[in-house]
């Protein structure tokens, strides 16, 4: 089972490395959206400090949406998705591998670059650390929930818009507690409660989302 998981992760990472442009578009989208706000709002430090966490999180949400389309559609179009579904391995594990690889190429870079972007909003070092922590816990949840939506809308016309309508409402709790963690740090309340809740979202998502996405894939292929 671990061999199958590693095989799928390596497969998708190799494919992503051969299509670096796709990976970079997501990252640039995130960087540009986050950087536009200080330019539009003006250099008022207090306002920016207030908005910062929310803006970074909303941008992460949108960037994660943007990359969802690529999660299964490539494999669906060239027929390799049928191989995955019919492989003698638990589909849940294979889907988990695909989601993990997707997070590594589209979620992790956002986490790593976020502190740099946070500087534009005058966030303190402590607040930046909390921002990184909240993104580390939160972005995998986005990938996991998004995978279910992407699997359900596979092969549908206008699937991109549909997946946003389906998935964005489910992202709301992650957004509230992710941005809330940084706010709590800035206002001196301490981010532990928010971060614990993000962790509490991650665990059930890790268990159920790959399974649900697997079933959604079976339905989409029928």
């Amino acid at each position, binding site marked *: 089972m671990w061999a199958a998981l590693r095989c*799928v992760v390596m*497969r998708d990472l190799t494919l992503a490395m051969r299509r670096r442009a796709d990976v970079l578009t997501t990252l640039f989208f995130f960087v540009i959206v986050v950087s536009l706000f200080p330019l539009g709002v003006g250099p008022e430090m207090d306002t920016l400090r207030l908005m910062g966490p929310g803006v970074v999180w909303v941008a992460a949400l949108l960037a994660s949406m943007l990359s969802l389309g690529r999660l299964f559609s490539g494999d669906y179009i*060239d027929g390799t998705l049928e191989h995955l579904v*019919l492989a003698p391995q638990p589909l849940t594990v294979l889907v988990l591998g695909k989601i993990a690889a997707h997070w590594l190429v589209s979620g992790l870079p956002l986490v790593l670059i976020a502190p740099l972007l946070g500087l534009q909003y005058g966030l303190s070092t402590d607040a930046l650390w909390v921002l990184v922590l909240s993104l580390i816990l939160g972005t995998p949840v986005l990938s996991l929930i998004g995978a279910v939506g992407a699997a359900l809308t596979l092969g549908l016309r206008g699937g991109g818009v549909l997946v946003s309508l389906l998935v964005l409402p489910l992202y709301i709790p992650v957004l509230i507690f992710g941005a809330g963690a940084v706010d709590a740090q800035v206002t001196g309340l301490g981010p532990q409660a928010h971060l614990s809740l993000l962790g509490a979202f991650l665990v059930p998502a890790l268990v159920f989302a790959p399974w649900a996405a697997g079933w959604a894939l079976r339905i989409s292929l029928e």
Partner: protein
Amino acid sequence: MLEVVDLACERGERRLFQGLNFSLKAGELLYVLGQNGSGKTTLLRTLCGLAWPAVGEVRWDGTEIRRLGDEYHRKMLYIGHLNGVKDDFTAFENLRVTGQLAGYADSEERALAALRRMELTACAELPGKVLSQGQRRRLALARLLLGDSRLWILDEPFSALDVKSVEGVQTVLSEHLDNGGMVVLTTHQEVEITSRRARHIHLSA
């Protein structure tokens, strides 16, 4: 043994066929014939478990295939219309990944042997996107030679192949049947596979 009991399939509210019964034993070959739209592909997808039957069951050694799950997937290999060739992987990598997914520890050796048998050694290091249609089809069919699946379900295996490759694939199929394998296939081409026990099913639209 593959058994089909009182099978009926639908595609978008339309009943394609019903009351289909047959069984396939070791060494047997089954041709699925019928006009366009008569449900050949749907039948094949139902046999491999990708599509649900409207009525009836598909059984392997007496157990319904959905209940067998991965155990059935280990014994069955399906090659559909789509070749399942990744454009960004080389021919060799495409096969190696398939072998790894099937759980073979020696997937590299198996992939090389399969490429040699399909006369694709020269293309081994070429990415999928530069392969011709015929080469892609041969690469898809090379999956047959990777492992030891008993049951092969092939949807139009000979499409886009030249005369020489068709002969090569025919030999591969004959050998599989001689070794006690089973083959279900659809084809529009006049292909004779030497088998003592070839059977035909006509699906009428």
